[in-house]
């Protein structure tokens, strides 16, 4: 995935102000930053939901915006569950599977639910599930077509230990399977555990971006706390 | 026989004039209000406290 010179303004304010980075298969970028730094806007642009004011996003060379095909390789987990509350967990994930044109939507849906260890509630309507279970179904939904680029916006929020474990295993398995991950989170330990690269975003720009191995965790935490003291 | 309906004409002309003038007036008032806000924003640095009501 290549993102070049991404800019997006909302009513005179530059939510994202010139972001460029590349993710290769097996990479996992942990993105930290205070509220309002533009993380969600960036994520929506990478997922093809929001057209960038300037710059471009390419997945395996195909621009995400124009080519609907490029979106077939992208999975998004956001704050909102993106589920239809009236439909059951299975129906939601199966609907997504059909949207991506999977040859076996039913089985793919069940496999995704099993991956997130929520298959026992497959036939419960989404609205009857707890916040954490909905989050798991939402993650299953984002992974049903085994995307080569997985974008997660604070996926761990609301997950209990079992849920977090399932998510970590799923993300690790996807990463080893050749997917590229972007993990937006406030939780340093969680983020750094999986990351191969780490970045901090302030006012729509990457103020720091380096490989995980080069990081001294304690210094990073100190600097992050001071950087994130004031919201953008 | 030419009907005597001059009163209708005056009614129509005055009504039209009222509507046009009312619109010109509304433009002028809105402009004045906005100018005041613009000047206020321009001169004061960061009017945290006295920020005028919403845009």
């Amino acid at each position, binding site marked *: 995935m290549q993102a070049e010179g991404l800019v997006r303004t909302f009513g005179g304010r530059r939510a994202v102000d010139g972001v460029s980075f590349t993710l290769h298969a097996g990479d996992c970028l942990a993105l930290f930053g205070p509220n309002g730094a533009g993380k969600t806007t960036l994520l929506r642009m990478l997922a093809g939901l929001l057209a960038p004011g300037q710059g471009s996003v390419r997945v395996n060379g195909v621009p995400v915006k124009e080519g609907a095909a490029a979106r077939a390789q*992208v999975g*998004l987990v956001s704050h909102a569950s*993106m589920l*239809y*509350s*009236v439909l059951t967990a299975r129906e939601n994930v199966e609907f*997504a599977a*059909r949207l991506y044109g999977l040859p076996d939507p039913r089985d793919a849906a069940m496999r995704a639910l099993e991956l997130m260890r929520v298959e026992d509630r497959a036939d419960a309507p989404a609205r009857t599930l707890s916040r954490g279970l909905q989050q798991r179904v939402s993650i299953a939904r984002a992974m049903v077509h085994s995307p080569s680029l997985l974008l997660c916006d604070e996926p761990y929020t609301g997950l209990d230990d079992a849920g977090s474990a399932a998510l970590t295993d799923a993300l690790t398995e996807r990463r080893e399977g050749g997917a590229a991950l972007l993990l937006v989170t406030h939780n340093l330990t969680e983020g750094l555990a999986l990351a191969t690269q780490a970045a901090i975003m302030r006012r729509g720009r990457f103020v720091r971006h380096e490989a995980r191995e080069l990081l001294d965790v304690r210094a990073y935490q100190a600097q992050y706390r001071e950087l994130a003291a004031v919201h953008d | 026989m030419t009907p005597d309906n001059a009163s209708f004409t005056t009614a129509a002309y005055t009504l039209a004039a009222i509507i046009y003038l009312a619109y010109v007036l509304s433009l002028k008032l809105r402009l004045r209000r906005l100018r005041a806000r613009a000047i206020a924003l321009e001169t004061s640095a960061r009017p945290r406290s006295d920020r005028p009501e919403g845009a």
Partner: protein
Amino acid sequence: MTDIAVPTPPGMLAAAWLVARKDLAIEFRTRTAFLSALVFALLGVTIFYFAWDATAVAAADLAPGVLWVIFTFAGLLGLQRSFGSELADRAVDGLLGAPISRESIYLGKAFANLVFVAGILFVTIPAVVLFYNLPMGSGIAALAGIAALAAVGLVAVGTLFSAMAVNTRMAELLLPMLSLPFFVPVVMAAAQSSARLMAGRPVAEAMPWLRILVAFDIVFVTACTLAFPFTLDE
């Protein structure tokens, strides 16, 4: 992971059908919107009957007019909720992120709305025939045909405006305000042509109105489909 068959994103119509099926499944499961629109329509038909002095105006002349007024407002009621389900929990992001075209989302929603409105008509027309004891015969088939044409026009415009109105503060007021001017030619054409056909007048007399109706459908289905992507937050 996936076996030999490579996943191929569905084409325009296939995707539209997927969206429509999902919408109808949701509608069938909740049924509240459909039932309320239906009861609204039936109540309207009965109330209209008592709004006129039956001796002065023959019920048969009244019937088409009543049908179209009720049909318009019941349709509006149905359109109101069509995008509500998408915005709850940002489910629309799931659609926008999928490898399907924006236009197919519109066509899917529009088709689901069409089925919704057709369902209401399917009950309201017999009710009007019953309550206003219209002569059975060919007139009813013509009425149903015209209703279908009118429904397409209303739904094409109504779905687009509902997609816009749902994102604003005053959705309930905005949707009727935006849609009703567009419903004028449709309702006028439908009422005039059905009145003539119901009164047994030669079809030729109703032709000019039917032409307007068909032209309206063609123009606005294409225009709304092309305009829909612009209503999304690109």
